[in-house]
């Protein structure tokens, strides 16, 4: 089958190329009388556009026949597949027919260029439409699957319930829990891990940004900035086992030395490592907005007898604040959607707690837990993942929109 497809594609390429060169040749001959004869009469399109028009028409015809053959063969039932050589012949014959028909169109006033431009325009538009439609499809799928979930579990219970234990009986005769879907502990856990991450990342990221933009020499900046951005390139699974194998045990050992019992998997282990992960987002974006504060503001402050740190904290930071808030919001939305670190290091127990030294669970962890293993795809347990995914999507979308609005508003101020 793969061999068949490859040969057909090669055939299409060949007929396309032949049609192109043929069309260009014919156009050159027919239009030659117009070049340099001094009559002032011109032709509309250059020969290569006529060639492209012929080649494009042949390719389009061939692809339609190829797709039709595939479609017929894919029909289940009768088993009478169209043999490959017949498809190849149909493609070759129709391409020749279309090309010969189009050859009659090649004249000085035939607007081949317009058709070619229109085709390129449409192809580019199609590509962007595909991206938009895919996004739309994902959102709609999330929405409809969530609606199915909310037919079985009330949306009110989901958004306000304090008990999360999604295990339901797989079979009618099996003894098991009825399952309860109160998502508050999950949202609380997500928020706790995110808060720990921001608590770690915001001060360090901002200090880095201030150092890089105001204090570092060009040389230092050239070394430090790329080095920090490497952090953003570390795979999250590496952060994950770092959190599980290094940070978690260290936190536990430290707590035990103080006489507290702390599990290896905890909000603080996952959150602090996640904080390290989002430092480059905050430092890099904040560095950009601090640099965007005009030099004239700094000069104005210096000219009043302000020191460097006074200028930094009272003028530059105040001017960059909206942009910095935007950077923080983007980092937060990134932290909320992060999965691998929390799966490995935060735990799975849906504890409703504000204590970062306990194991908590997050939205992303629960989605993984609900969908891995053998599952029925219409049980509330599985459908709950879609509802969680929808909530996550809405939260990050809102955060991103707010962040972009804030950053844009800030940009306009200094134009």
């Amino acid at each position, binding site marked *: 089958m793969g061999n068949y497809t490859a040969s057909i594609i090669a055939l299409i390429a060949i007929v396309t190329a032949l049609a192109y060169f043929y069309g260009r040749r014919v156009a050159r001959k027919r239009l030659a009388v117009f070049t340099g004869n001094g009559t002032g009469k011109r032709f509309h399109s250059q020969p290569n556009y006529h060639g492209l028009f012929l080649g494009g028409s042949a390719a389009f015809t061939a692809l339609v026949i190829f797709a039709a053959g595939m479609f017929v063969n894919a029909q289940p039932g009768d088993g009478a597949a169209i043999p490959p050589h017949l498809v190849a012949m149909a493609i070759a014959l129709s391409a020749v027919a279309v090309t010969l028909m189009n050859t009659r169109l090649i004249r000085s006033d035939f607007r081949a260029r317009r058709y070619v431009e229109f085709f390129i325009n449409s192809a580019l538009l199609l590509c962007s439409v595909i991206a938009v439609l895919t996004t739309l499809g994902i959102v709609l799928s999330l929405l409809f699957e969530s609606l199915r979930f909310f037919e079985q579990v009330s949306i009110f219970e989901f958004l306000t319930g304090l008990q999360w234990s999604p295990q339901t009986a797989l079979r009618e005769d099996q003894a098991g829990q009825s399952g309860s879907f109160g998502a508050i502990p999950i949202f609380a856990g997500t928020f706790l891990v995110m808060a720990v991450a921001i608590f770690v990342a915001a001060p360090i990221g901002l200090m880095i940004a201030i150092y890089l933009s105001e204090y570092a020499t060009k040389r230092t900046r050239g070394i430090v900035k790329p080095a920090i951005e490497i952090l953003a390139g570390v795979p999250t699974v590496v952060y994950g086992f770092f959190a599980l194998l290094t940070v978690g045990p260290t936190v536990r050992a430290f707590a035990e030395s103080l006489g507290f019992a702390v599990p290896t998997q905890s909000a603080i282990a996952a959150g602090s490592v996640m904080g390290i992960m989002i430092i480059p987002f905050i430092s890099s974006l904040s560095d950009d907005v601090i640099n965007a504060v*005009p030099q*004239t*503001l*700094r*000069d*104005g*402050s*210096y*000219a*009043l*007898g*302000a*020191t460097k740190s*006074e200028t930094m904290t*009272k*003028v530059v930071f*105040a*001017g960059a604040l909206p942009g910095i808030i935007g950077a923080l919001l983007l980092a937060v939305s990134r932290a909320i959607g992060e999965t691998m670190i929390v799966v490995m290091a935060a735990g799975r127990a849906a504890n409703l707690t504000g204590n970062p030294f306990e194991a908590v669970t997050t939205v992303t962890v629960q989605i993984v837990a609900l969908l891995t293993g053998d599952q029925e795809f219409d049980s509330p347990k599985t459908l709950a993942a879609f509802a969680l995914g929808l909530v996550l999507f809405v939260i990050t979308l809102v955060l991103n929109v707010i962040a972009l609005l804030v950053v844009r508003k800030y940009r306009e*101020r200094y134009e």
Partner: protein
Amino acid sequence: MTQLLTSTNKVSYRALTPELELMGQVNVTTETEFDNAKFTCRDVRVHYGSLEALHGIDMNIQDNGVTALIGPSGCGKSSFLRVFNRMNDTITGARVSGEVLMDGQDIYSNDIDPVLLRARVGMVFQKPNPFPKSIYDNVAYGPRIHGLAETRVELDGIVETSLRKGGLWEEVKDRLDDPGTGLSGGQQQRLVIARAIAVDPEVILMDEPASALDPIATAKLEVLIDELKENYCIVIVTHSMAQAARISQKTAFFHMGDLVEYGETAKIFSNPEDKRTQDYITGRTG
């Protein structure tokens, strides 16, 4: 605030030369002759890296009056202006040599803190640069960092006085909490002047302060400068000949990093000695 020179010294300067101050505007002087010099410059050179932007300037600046620095773009007049409050220090690669005395004291000596110097020598820039704060906070910025006010009432007083001196009080007194960036260009420039006045400087440097303003805002600014010269030493860089002629008492013409001619504004504009000055003023070069 630490004063570099005791105020009694300053008073004695003025007491010795009351008649010169009165006669300042009509008395034809050469650059070194007047006694009420605020700044005395000897062989001042400014380098940016290996490029010498000013080639040894000898010039005195009078106290209580407006001195205009004119000349074509790139002639070094802005570099020279930034010598007086050591703003060149903030540019990497910039170097100043020579001697600059303010009230007889070298402002480039090691025991002078540029931060304190800049509190005494205020500066207004080409483009209005109010901070992204309220009108009140813009003016209160300097007094706050220098601890000039003990109480809120005192600070309110400084802000009001400064805005009055800046000719902006009547326009903004009901909206002191509005952002300074929301004012018009001319109002912003007067706000920036009020901000400079609030730290009680002795000198105000202005680097083409009217170049971003419309004619009406420029006229208001010029009236303000004329009032301020009673109490401050003002040095202004301008590209407008008419403006220099209207507001200044002394004019210095710079060309290619040299001080070509310096003297009474009336004389420079009516009877310049150097041909280059004459060509520039009459619009033949520039």
